[in-house]
């Protein structure tokens, strides 16, 4: 073969392409391949590893640009605790300047975290000892770092003073929070109020509550009492059956699946619907008679929606709910639970009917429901909810401002308009008429979510909705645990919040 090679090379010198092929052959066929090494392989090896190194660099850049904030606010992250020796924890203020949390330094240097509003902001603001929660946890690193000028910091250092961490000014509105807190009264549950077009959270109440000033002494009791779970922020982490408020999504799914038919929807309500041994009945066995989709929603007719549930393709319904962030994280850094929607293609008729009216195995958080109401109010675009409006140095210089940002368009303007119309009907002629007559328009949906706990049956009272339908100002979600029907308990609470907002 070697001789052949030589002859070939001689004979074909004029023909470059053939010669090239020849040399390649020689390479592979050569009976002594250790000679005549070429560097191509080494080049490939170099390329490969250089590529891997570049990936390392790229991933590090990615971490620094996109992951740093969520890592710094991770609940397990205790990195910034080292800064406690260097900085006095910054203050937290409401949007109108009321102090919600501040650190007072005694003459001997002892620091005490003081919450002047006691229980009212307990879950929203959180606590900073015995672990951390709420804003205290999410913005821990900001509270324990200072953007004060270098000169101020040097002055502090020379005077052996600890620097003061930055101040957080929240979006929380003191009077609205106060109203929500008082209105929920003795019920366990949650109230959440936010601006639909910005995502600013104006009120966040969860009950039962605690006094964050006394978290140290209360701690043992709080964590040993598992039944009431006082520390849980029900507004963001409580998981409840949605009841009839879920019908908004059932109606939307029906509109999408039967684009031609939903306007002509008509159902004869006889207060009961039975399919394969499962009976769905309307609340109080009311007979709603013949109704279209709007009337069915505003009267919260269970049988009409159960029949819709039988018509819906479960897979598509599931897809729609996941688009609306069921089984997914909400677009926020606030710590929250994930709402659950489990309906599958092969679901039984009973399960489909139950799911369509918000019973079944669906579970939601009040924050999530408030966001869905806000999405309808905002013409179909969901805004990212947030609680800190801006950060200042302790002496008042602006450090950074949170800008409202849209998460996504979840429904078309037309779909939002129709749902708004349906929800307005609920207020004008349905289950939430108590919201009328105060000089502002409102739209919403009530829910009476039945539950069984330790063998006892009860009904959670739900309301989600928004005010000033033409250009919505405020979206709310109210849940009063075991509060009866939505109309009885949740709607009056929502009414008080709206009235405080408009001062009427």
């Amino acid at each position, binding site marked *: 073969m070697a001789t052949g090679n030589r002859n070939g090379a001689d004979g074909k010198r004029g023909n470059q392409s053939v010669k090239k092929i020849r040399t390649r052959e020689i390479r592979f066929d050569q009976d002594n391949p250790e000679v005549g090494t070429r*560097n191509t392989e080494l080049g490939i*090896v170099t390329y490969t590893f250089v590529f891997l190194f570049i990936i390392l660099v790229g991933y590090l850049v990615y971490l620094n640009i996109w992951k740093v904030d969520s890592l710094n606010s991770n609940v397990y992250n205790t990195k910034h605790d080292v800064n406690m020796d260097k900085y006095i924890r910054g203050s937290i203020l409401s949007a109108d300047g009321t102090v919600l949390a501040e650190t007072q330094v005694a003459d001997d240097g002892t620091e005490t975290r003081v919450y002047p509003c006691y229980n009212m902001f307990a879950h929203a603001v959180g606590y900073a000892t015995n672990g951390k929660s709420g804003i205290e946890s999410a913005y821990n690193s900001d509270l324990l770092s200072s953007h004060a000028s270098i000169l101020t910091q040097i002055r502090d250092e020379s005077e052996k003073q600890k620097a003061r961490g930055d101040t957080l000014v929240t979006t929380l509105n003191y009077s609205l929070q106060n109203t929500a807190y008082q209105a929920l009264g003795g019920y366990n549950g949650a109230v959440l109020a936010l601006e639909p077009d910005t995502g600013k959270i104006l009120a966040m109440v969860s009950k039962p509550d605690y006094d964050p000033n006394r978290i140290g002494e209360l701690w043992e009791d709080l964590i040993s009492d598992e039944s009431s779970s006082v520390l849980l922020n029900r507004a963001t982490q409580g998981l409840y059956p949605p009841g009839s408020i879920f019908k908004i999504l059932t109606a939307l799914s029906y509109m999408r699946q039967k684009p031609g038919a939903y306007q002509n929807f008509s159902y004869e309500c006889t207060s009961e619907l039975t399919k394969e041994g499962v009976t769905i009945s309307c609340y109080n066995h009311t007979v709603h008679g013949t109704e279209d989709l709007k009337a069915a929603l505003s009267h919260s007719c269970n049988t009409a929606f159960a029949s819709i549930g039988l018509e819906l393709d479960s897979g598509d319904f599931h897809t729609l709910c996941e688009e609306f962030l069921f089984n997914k994280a909400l677009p926020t850094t606030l710590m929250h639970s994930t709402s659950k929607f489990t309906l599958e293609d092969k679901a039984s008729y009973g399960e489909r009917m139950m799911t369509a009216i918000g019973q079944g195995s669906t579970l939601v958080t009040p924050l999530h429901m408030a966001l869905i109401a806000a999405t309808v109010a905002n013409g179909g675009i969901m805004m990212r909810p947030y609680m800190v409006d801006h950060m200042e140095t302790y002496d008042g210089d602006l450090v950074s401002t949170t800008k409202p940002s849209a998460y996504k368009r979840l429904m078309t303007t037309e779909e939002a308009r129709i749902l708004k119309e349906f929800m307005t009907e609920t207020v004008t002629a349905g289950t939430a008429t108590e919201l009328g007559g105060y000089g502002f328009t409102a739209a919403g949906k009530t829910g009476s979510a039945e539950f069984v706990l330790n063998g006892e049956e009860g009904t959670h009272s739900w309301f989600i909705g928004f005010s000033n339908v033409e250009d919505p100002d405020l979206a709310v979600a109210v849940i009063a645990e075991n509060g009866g029907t939505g109309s009885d308990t949740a709607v009056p609470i929502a009414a008080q919040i709206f009235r405080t907002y408009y001062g009427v």
Partner: protein
Amino acid sequence: MSNLIIQVSKYLIIILMALYTFQCFTVFSQKDEDDRNFVFLRQNTLMFFMHFVAFTVLYLEMGDVMVLFFYGSQVIYLVATLVLFRNLYPLASKLLINNMCMLITIGFIMITRISYDKSVKQFKIVALSTVIALIIPIIIRKLRFITKMYWFYTMAGIGLLALVAIMARTTYGAKISFDIGPVSIQPSEFVKIIYVFAIAGLLSNAREFKRVVIATALAAVHVLILVVSKDLGSALIFFVTYLVVLFVATKNPFLVLAGILSGSLAAVGAYFLFGHVRVRVEAWRDPFEDYYVNGYQISQSLFSIAAGTWFGTGLYQGSPTAISIVEQDFMFSAIAEELGSIFGICLILVCMSCFIMFVNIAMQLTNRFYRLVAVGLGATYATQVFLTIGGGIKLIPLTGVTLPLVSYGGSSALSTLIMFAVVQGLYMLQRDEEKKQSAPAGGQDSYEDYDPNYGYPQSGPVYGDQDPYGNYGGYDGYDPQGGYAGQNGYDDSFAGYGDPGGYPPYGGYGEQNPYDGYGGPDDYDVYGRGGNYAGPGWESGGYEEDYGSQGGERTDGYGKQKRSRRKKR
């Protein structure tokens, strides 16, 4: 005031490191050798300056005079290392030596910050290891047979690993180290080196498929023992190194693809078979899911990087010690926290520069066995860097390996220094052999002109002069006619090679003869790329125009050579 110094020093350290890194890649744009040497010296200055700034901060924070003495000893050590290597081995790659010292310096700084006692221990080990590393090239040169004992290495490697698997102490769930008196030794660190010699030896004359099968089986035994010992990091390093050497030896991408495929299958199998593999993968997927047990380290590592962001917290301003065994497996995260991610990126690039220098030296070696050893050691190094940094930043699951020369750990430091020294030694060995050959052949003095510091590519035709790293792409565009035109003329040298009279000893060189088979036009590029011929007097013409006139002579030489080899068989 000290707070201000710490804040300023933080940026200063980053700037110094960035300049150093930049010069790792731009130094070869300097055409003149003196200019290059000047840049290498400047790199040393930057390194010492950075070392000084860092230890100023460490002293301010620790307030212990011992730190100053410690700093002094480190400076003496670094100066001695630089001076000794350069003078004992004038032909060694200066960039590689600079990088080696830079990595050691970064290690000193960070280990001192994490634990002064450990740092002192590490310093002693590194100093001793450097002495060993200094004599390695001499040993290789004098006792060259030791590089050929690959069957022995194969058996010794397997034996040692098996011994570890059976007898070793279990550390963090893996069996990796022996205690001998006060010292704990990680044999896998040293097996790594002889393993490379073993597989390079087995594959360097992989003429038949059978040989490849045997080599593969023996490499697989190494890897399997490591998997059983739960030393997944080393197992992966051994595996990747084998694939790289296999690829370079056989030039057969399909074998490598088959290797990657079977490796992936084995990885999936390991995931389902071994709990400890599953745990690592789960912790990688979501470290916060099982935060308190398996996700703790990687979570803390991520928190460290997030706490540091681009510019770092400054030395002593972070809390890298929250990561357990930070000084070994998570050194990179500690660096990213306190010195910043920009510094971290520079560190990655310096490691990359080391790797490129390894391969570059491999390219200049014409002896097949040495080439495989050099590229194998390079792959070992690069894989280890990738695994430890990638694991720390959660790019890949954690494998628990150290960052060579930077992390705390005697075995790792010694074996890495040996690795660096072996590669330099191989190059010198080759030069010795070339000298012997060139003596009877005559006219070979040009080899003497080669200087590895002249650049990665040394004005080889495909690289281009200005961007030594950037133009590897030229490989694929290889064309025996067009590719050579211009930069390096071959006319004179070909005449020398082609002269049959000049090559009487050819046949006798046997397999180690680097000139063997020089006749195929395909083979010229070794010299072109390695740049061994880039003597100043040879730039008269291009390959293209000289090809015809040189052909006859060369063919004669070639034929003669082939004949003599056949006789030998």
